[in-house]
């Protein structure tokens, strides 16, 4: 196993090299660069050339690539063109804001999805199951910003239960508990919306997974042991239905840090998603490439973790 992990970690190297080459190539092919994207009025051709020289954009792509990779190996992702500060700092500034809601969302949505999915499966075609199914599809049929609007309208504006947007109350000079409370209040809406959005699909996966399992012989054995239905379902059946969930869990890792582009915007949440989006639109290559590589590493790790977890969840799986 440890051998497998080491091998997979080693495999990450060529994969990352591949990703870096492709990503870099894309950045070269994307129309425009930072100079054209920032659309400085009256910029003379000379000034544009000067700037390109400052940013190193005038060098041949291959050379630029190697400079980038070389810096990256020393942990230096370069300076963001837009933010005028090191990319790592930009990421560090925003990523935790995204992480916190993504994390809470993940916990919530996985818990809810597990329960709802399991019950839907257990009572397949019951009224509960049908209502859940319809609800899930309803949420899937509208774009995410729409659900966001809905929440703002009814929960924030009409019921005035929670603040409409942002992460803290303006001018709040509180520290400690008051600060946390304030952040939690502000988190509420985005988390609710993100949870409703993710929970639907997950519920479906849990439901099908469970449907497959609950008719197996060993579930019968568990019942024959006189275990309570709850134990039978949540322990014996659930564990066997985990494989798809583990796969999806692997995808969550980059998701935790990736930010939610649209919803962060809707709720004015200071997350990395918007920053990343802007870096793409502004062709802020150091930030765009740096963050992409950051996510790539997380993606690879996430998949590696899920591959390892397969074996834990199901001892029969032997990955070589």
């Amino acid at each position, binding site marked *: 196993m440890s051998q497998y992990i080491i091998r997979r970690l080693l495999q990450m190297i060529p994969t990352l090299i591949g990703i870096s080459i492709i990503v870099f190539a894309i950045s070269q092919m994307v129309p425009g660069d930072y100079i054209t994207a920032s*659309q400085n*009025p*009256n910029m003379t051709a000379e000034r544009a050339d000067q700037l390109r020289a400052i940013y190193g954009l005038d060098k041949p792509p291959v050379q630029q690539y190697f400079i980038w990779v070389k810096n990256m190996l020393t942990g230096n992702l370069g300076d963001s063109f837009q933010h005028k500060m090191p990319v790592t700092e930009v990421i560090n500034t925003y990523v935790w804001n995204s992480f916190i809601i993504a994390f809470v969302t993940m916990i919530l949505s996985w818990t809810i999805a597990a329960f709802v999915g399991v019950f839907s499966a257990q009572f397949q075609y019951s009224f509960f199951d049908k209502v859940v199914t319809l609800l899930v599809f309803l949420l899937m049929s509208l774009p995410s*910003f729409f659900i966001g609007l809905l929440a*703002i309208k009814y929960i924030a504006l009409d019921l005035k239960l929670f*603040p409409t947007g*942002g992460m803290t109350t*303006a001018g709040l000079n509180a520290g400690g508990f008051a600060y946390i409370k304030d952040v939690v209040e502000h988190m509420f809406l985005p988390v609710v919306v993100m949870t409703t959005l993710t929970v639907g699909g997950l519920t479906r996966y849990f439901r099908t997974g469970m449907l497959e399992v609950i008719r197996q012989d060993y579930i019968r054995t568990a019942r024959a042991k006189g275990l309570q239905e709850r134990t039978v379902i949540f322990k014996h059946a659930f564990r066997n239905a985990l494989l798809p969930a583990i796969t999806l869990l692997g995808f969550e890792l980059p998701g935790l840090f990736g930010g939610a582009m649209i919803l962060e*915007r809707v*709720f004015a949440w200071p997350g990395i998603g918007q920053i990343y989006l802007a870096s793409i639109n502004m062709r802020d290559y150091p930030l765009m490439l740096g963050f992409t590589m950051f996510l790539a590493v997380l993606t690879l790790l996430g998949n590696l973790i899920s591959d390892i977890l397969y074996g834990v969840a199901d001892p029969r799986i032997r990955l070589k």
Partner: protein
Amino acid sequence: ACGGGEEAAPADNGTDSAVTTPAESGEDAAGETPAEGADSESAIGLTEATDMTMNPPGAVNRTDSMIIGTVAPQGVFNPLFHQTAYDFAIDDNLFSSLIKVKADGTYENDMADKIDISDDNKTYTFHIRDDAKFSDGTPVTANDYLFTMKLYMDASYDGQSDPLSWNVVGANEYNKGTAKDISGIKVVDDKTVEITVSDYDAMTQVNLGAVAPLPEAYYGKGYKQGDLTSVKQLNAKPVGSGPYKLKSYSAGQEVDLVANEHYYGGVAKIPNVIFKVTTDTTNMAMLQSGETDLDNVTVNEDNVEELKSMGFLDVNVLKNNGYGYVAMNNKNPLFSDVKVRQALTYGLNRAEVVEAAYGPYAEVINIPQSDVSWAYTADKINTYDYNPDEAKKLLDEAGWTVGSDGIREKDGKKFEINFSATADNPVVDALIPIMTENYQELGIKLVTETLDFNAIMEKKDRGDYDMFFAAWGLTPDPDTTVYITDGAQNNSGYSNPKVDELYAKGKKELDLDKRKEIYAEAYQQINADAPEILMYQRTNMLAINGRLDGWDISPYKEYQHSLSQVQAAQ
């Protein structure tokens, strides 16, 4: 021209000209309008709050502070480096410069109490006010100005300005590292600095005067010629000479300013200003709940009505300093004939598009200038009112005859236009169907596509396009390179020696009245040549809580310039 939203692109420290915009989502959503649309005049301007009793207590009680809704700043609090209009608005209050813009788009002295200009217009002497101090209490000196200019001229300077184009003597040498000093800048005494330029134009004074001096003692500590890293590291900890100073900044959330007690213009009346990040989904709600005092809101009838109905908001609908247009590639044989370009302008029902997209909150324009500018003229300007017959006539004259399939052709070539536009834009939504239909009637086939803004710009740069839709942002000064032959921003390849001459003349002329005439003539030329189809000038809306008074706002002078004068009622 252009850039992430007209708002997003700051005019280069107050100078320079136009900004093309992917007339982007910030300005979207068309309004519901009474079909007449006649009351357009009344739609623009200030509507005062009607019922201050409706003001939510949160806002009423906030007597020593105001909260301004803004799109997220990037935290570049340094006038040399800031990129977005939102950082710009904050920096305007943290730093002040030698001159400042007035409501009519002209300039007045600010930190300079006197400016001497030599007769040959090549030497500028700025006299800094005696009481000008940085927020740390140290005085602003001529040395600080020199230091700041060095930063601008530094080889690693990558900000929005193009300081070498200011033609300061010795700047190039400093930039290349061959000189340790800028020979053209002379520190006469602590408060006097003299700048010599190798060449001048109407903008020179503005370029030099709009520089906000940075304290050398603070920013100069780690600075070595050719490396601005140490300066950039201070971006989040600014020290300037503006009415406010930075108290705290939390990225993506808010920027807290507090009055600068050393401000030479008098300590700001409201001691605390908070810039709070809002979005177009939340900004109206936050105004309503009193969480913010001021915000930009997309103009459309729904929003205007909504804001007005709140009663406690002053609603400013201001002409936007820019215009939308459909570019035609003048180098493309399709559009090289002026008759064709005119025909395409006549043949497009611009009024309908504008009405559909903006209702009363935008107007069709016929010259590339805002009607609030001093340079604006309506004299001898053809309005190209929708006239398909005229258009057909012109096309016939140009040799494009209707073919058997109803499509015009010339020399065996069909009249087919590829049209690119950015999507998610209210104008494009209206423009494409109307244009397709209008041109079909003329016998022209329009092939439309929606593209990423940068992709369109790249097509433009390569000259590989027929037509695209975009918008320009304007600066207070009418000088621009958009219409001069091979101008930096001349997208269309339009060339008219007469226009070139007029722009060159206008640039060199320092007398406003004379400049007016020059530009009027240039606009008439352009109007006749129809190098592009000018579409509209739209408006912006600024909603301000009625409890705040003392604003001096115009299309040229944005709200941030009067923050320090504003006071809360009672």
